[in-house]
């Protein structure tokens, strides 16, 4: 069984981004970039399926600028077998990524496509659901447990009220939540070995996809800042302030 995993290159989760002075965009020049944390969980899940003898091949896919190669190399070092880079300098929004991923999935014919539930830059939480829609496949979003059956997969999902388990027929699209697994650290020998694994290039034009953005960002701004308040000495003082000053009790 083949598994396709989508990995996005994003600003590292430890970086606090700044807005450009003219408010046109976020300033991401010279900041640390990493694989989207949810996508590490996606790669890890695929690798575990392979280690368990359930998956035979893992193909990692990334869309975007040249440096997405680094993200793909990380996926290869974690255990993916080969990589596909859909290279473009164009701004890619979730619908465009889903269309590209659909085309790759049609070519590769995987049984599972695994994505992160959310990219921590755009916080969109859309691409997996859109990919499933375009392929006409079932979707298991916000997965915290994946159990492969015969021609189907049971997915436990983190929903607002707790957990929900659904049974999906294969092929299916999954998106990962935080508790699905804990991604491994990549070891140096694996990083070296990853350099020799195949990384193929394609483009939106090759895949016949129009990636024109549908949403235009008119401006970006930092939210109103909260200022630090006061330190109180003890519980008695706190309760008094909450009652008399803040009037929330």
């Amino acid at each position, binding site marked *: 069984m083949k598994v396709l995993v989508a990995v996005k290159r994003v600003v590292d*989760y430890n970086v606090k*981004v700044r807005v450009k002075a003219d408010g046109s965009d*976020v300033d991401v020049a010279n900041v640390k970039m990493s694989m989207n944390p949810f996508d590490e969980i996606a790669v890890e899940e695929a690798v575990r399926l392979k280690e368990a003898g359930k998956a035979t091949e893992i193909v990692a896919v990334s869309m975007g600028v040249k440096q997405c190669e680094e993200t793909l190399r990380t996926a290869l070092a974690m255990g993916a077998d080969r990589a596909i880079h859909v290279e473009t300098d164009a701004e890619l929004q*979730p*619908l465009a990524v*889903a269309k590209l991923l659909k085309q790759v999935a049609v070519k590769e014919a995987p049984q599972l496509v695994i994505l992160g539930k959310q990219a*921590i*830059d*755009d*916080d969109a*939480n*859309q691409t*997996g*659901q*859109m990919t*499933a*829609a*375009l392929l006409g496949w*079932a*979707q298991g*979003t*916000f997965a915290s447990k994946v159990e492969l059956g015969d021609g189907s997969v*049971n997915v436990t999902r*983190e*929903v*607002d*009220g*707790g*957990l*929900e*388990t*659904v*049974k999906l*027929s294969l092929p*299916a699209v999954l998106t990962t*939540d*935080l508790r699905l697994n804990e991604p491994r650290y990549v070891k140096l020998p694996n990083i070296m070995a990853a350099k020799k694994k195949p990384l193929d290039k394609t483009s939106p034009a090759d895949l016949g996809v129009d990636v024109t953005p549908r*949403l*235009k*960002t*008119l401006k*970006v*701004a*930092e*939210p109103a800042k*909260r200022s*630090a*308040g006061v*330190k*109180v000495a*003890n*519980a*008695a003082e*706190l*309760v008094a*302030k*909450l009652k008399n000053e*803040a009037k*929330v*009790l």
Partner: protein
Amino acid sequence: MAILVIAEHDNSQIKSGTLNTVTAAQKLGSDVHLLVAGAGCAAAADAAKQIAGVSKVLLADAAALAHPLAENLTPLVVDLAKQYSHVLAPATTFGKNLLPRVAALLDVAQISEITAVESADTFVRPVYAGNVMATVQSSDAIKVITVRTTAFEAAAVSGGAAAVEAVSGAADAGLSSFVSQELTVSDRPELAAAKIVVSGGRALGSAEQFKAVIEPLADKLGAAVGASRAAVDAGYAPNDYQVGQTGKVVAPQLYVAVGISGAIQHLAGMKDSKVIVAINKDEEAPIFQVADYGIVGDLFSVLPELMTELSK
């Protein structure tokens, strides 16, 4: 053109996020329709028609809709959407699961988790864990939107008198089925809509201590219980307690953060609270930068004192 809101419900009651979504819809137009899609959901439709500001309720009652499976709901919503300028749902796990699937089949973008409506095609939404607010304009014919519920008031649950219209045609797509659920049962208010939230972090150290220390304080205050990711990952609290960028967003009157450091991913979920209290033994903890009132101290001695003070 009218605006369509997809109601989140459990076949008998309308979930609170739907009410905030109705308010967001009213900023786009006065003709707001509410879709109640479920099985045996007449009671939910009955509640829906009384919501202030709803002019029509569409009731799709079919066995295939007993659970909100996106595969079965999507064709229904896609079909209806063509008669509307905007389709909205709350940015809950329900709405986040469903609407992107709808948007893709309509070949339109989805605008995620809006916090403000600037005009019929322009919206504000947080990106980068809420560190940046982006104003975005959609060029699509139908705007498909999820709504951050804390950013809009709840519509009144009574006062409306909408007509109910039956919608047929829902079927089982044959792709997915519901197996089971494990819902967190609690008599406390719902986290996303609570007036007071008490959250615990990694410092609680165990599920037992989380229960013994955080829950009594929450009960004393009539509060909902929240948690940091670290506390959830460690199994101190259920997953649906997680507050933050990738958990729930809350904006209560009072948020009490106990033993939580204040990582940006956590702040993303609570920094719009009216009053923030932080209890942390590290005076340098970033949570104090957003807290209105802070106590530097060991939570295991501060919380019992707080309980005593609140009982006075």
